[in-house]
């Protein structure tokens, strides 16, 4: 079971919870299960989202496996200049 952290507007989309428990083996599975449970999150996922696994930020590779016990955090998608 993963403990997934949220902040700001993403937290509002999961009923104001700072942390949610989810069973998922990959980023794709994680997002799919979260959207299923919290439909308001879909808009953020569509707009672009990033997932931090143990502090490293993954923006694109949804097939990335999530090791057991990883610290998982959802973030808005970042871009740069």
């Amino acid at each position, binding site marked *: 079971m993963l403990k997934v952290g949220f902040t700001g507007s993403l937290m509002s989309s999961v009923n104001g919870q700072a942390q949610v428990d989810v069973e998922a083996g990959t980023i794709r599975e994680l997002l799919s299960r979260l959207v299923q449970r919290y439909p308001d999150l879909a808009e953020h996922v569509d707009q672009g989202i990033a997932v931090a696994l143990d502090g490293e930020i993954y923006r*694109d590779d949804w097939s990335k496996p999530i090791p057991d016990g990883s610290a998982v955090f959802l973030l808005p998608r970042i*871009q*740069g200049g």
Partner: protein
Amino acid sequence: MNNDQSFTDQEFKVVGTRPKRPDGVDKVTGRAKYGADASAPGQLVGLMLRSPHAHASIKKIDTSKAEKLQGVKAVVTAADLPDLTGGPGDNFYILENCMARDRALYDGHAVAAVAAIDKATAKKALKLIKVSYKKLPHVTDVDKAMKPNAPIVQPHIQQDGKPSNIAANYEFGHGDVEAGLEEADVVVEKSYKTEQTHQGYIEPHACLASVSPDGTGELWVTTQGHFHFRNVCATLLGMDISKLKVTSSEIGGGFGGKTHVWIEPVALALSRKSNRPVKMVMSREEVFRASGPTCSTSMDVKIGAKKDGTITSAFIECRYMDGAFPGIWGMLGGMTAWACYDLKNVKAVGIDVLCNRPKVAAYRAPSAPMMAFGVESTMDILAKELKMDPVKLRLHNVAREGTRASYGPTYGPIGIEPTLEAVKNHPHMGARLKKNQGRGMACGFWFNIGGQTCTDLNIGVDGSVSLTVGTVDVGGSRASLGLIAAEELGIEYEQVKVHIADTASLGHNDTTEGSRGTFSSGMATIFAARNAKDELCQRAAKMWDIPVSAVVWKEGKAVAKGKRHNNLAPLTIQEIAAKSPTTGGPIAGHNEVTADGAGVSFASHICDVEVDPETGATKVLRYTVVQDAGKAIHPDYVEGQFQGGAAQGIGWALNEEYIYGDDGLLQNAGFLDYRIPVCSDLPFIDTKILEIPNPNHPYGIRGVGETSIVPPLAAIGNAVTNAVGVRMTHVPMTPPRILKALDEAGG
């Protein structure tokens, strides 16, 4: 193994050396082709007609006289660029910015364009286009735009059911900042402002567009991301993506400003209508008025701390002026604000606000320098209140591996503490200062990103290597990628030539932004080279007629393993390549990768200034940049990035700003009145590269291009404050602002 992105911790032979830049000769001899250097038979000159008003409703555009002028081949308005995007959203805003629809939203907003046989004819034609405007109230100041009765820029954007200029509101943090203030022995708070600046790239936007009657098209353009330009232009014009080929030119500076399309869809529309190639080159005035500068901001910061320096509460709210179209600048700023520190109670609020100014674009670590100005200035105020050394205060609260970042995740290995230790021990910090001189320091953070990348590595029959990548070389990536290919193959750097492919020659590559070029294309290059090494071993095995399992690649040669084969002399890449026609044909490696796991980056800067108390003029005397690079592939370029970011930050801190009149018109759209620093304004910028490897890259690479612009506003602000004895809260710290601050303080 081939696609394993884990850090290898290997000894390098080529990486880390400083060979001559591969594009140097062409650039200094004028051979290099920039955006305006493309030409095609029968090409026309395209020019844009721009709004003279800050905000106006467009009642009618009469192009009939212009169309009848001899030599005019096409005139386009919004009617020629219908909305195929489905209404308000990112692509619609891009379309509306490229060509105004029912309203001109800022001074310089494009309202029509012409293509003619020469520039003189095109200029005449622009004068013949009659636009009936109805002027509307405007707002160009971020704080005024948030007031209840402010003129509304985009009426469909609403807050609480009413039209509003507040486009978005982002919050980040954890803990309870109010409770943290209760715990504090000392509370400091301050408000700040930063003005709008332009990236100031020397090469203006330029392109040559050609659309054929068969629906295919080509675009030659100066850009940081030709694949992105292709996708956006094709979408806006209703073309198949694969039928538009985009070739990127050499780029004369981008810094984020060339991640957006501005004139390119219009050039394509003109070409489509005229059935001729059309070249468009922005004037400098157009670049200022109608390409994407960064945000102006206003912000409030509050920090509570214990007497020993432990921060108990950290808060910032920053209002970002987005121009006429919504961006994500408040989000990026909010995530970066407190990233350098380990904080129990922290909150950052970033608000995006619309104004009648040009669409804001990214500028090197977009949004981070402004919040860093507020945070790092207030950190210095706190240090003074606590009578504590400012470096010691920062070290006392510094984020480390395992710290929960203010934007959410927990950090892996990071480099802010080592940069602060390096600053503490740097000779610069101990150097003596004279009268009217001051020293300041500040920290900064940027994420860095990875993304989609793909490369081809082809080995010629002479053993030389052609590496083809799709990330535009903005800051030296051809040199760094050549070094990486040479390192991985075990050959000399001079044997590798790096090319930037057009969009028809490689799979999609994300834009060179977010300091991703060397990180992501470097990863794809390593993987492609590993593929090529496998193939080279296969070919050697065929040449020797032994199993491939008995061949390894070592120091640039195929070596036969085991006693049975120890009579076989190693085969060089040249020897294997020479036989390639009879061992299976061309030898190549290829890779496409989504390079995630970019390591975050930190920097700490030191600055000495002297302020003339009579004139308020500031001279930067000495400047030192300390930054974590992960691994400096070509240290000259890394140092150049550090110096470039600092130089741009110095300009932003002391001189540069967009000045709008009460009429909402930009008053200083040129380099005479918008003064970027020149060599004589700058000291030699000293650099210190730290190398804390990124565990998610085989060579430990982190991006290096952006972080260096984050600390300068605050480092210089702290230095000026220490020189004049009055806290500076408004960037740029121009002589009039410094004199005003001194007057107000009774100095």
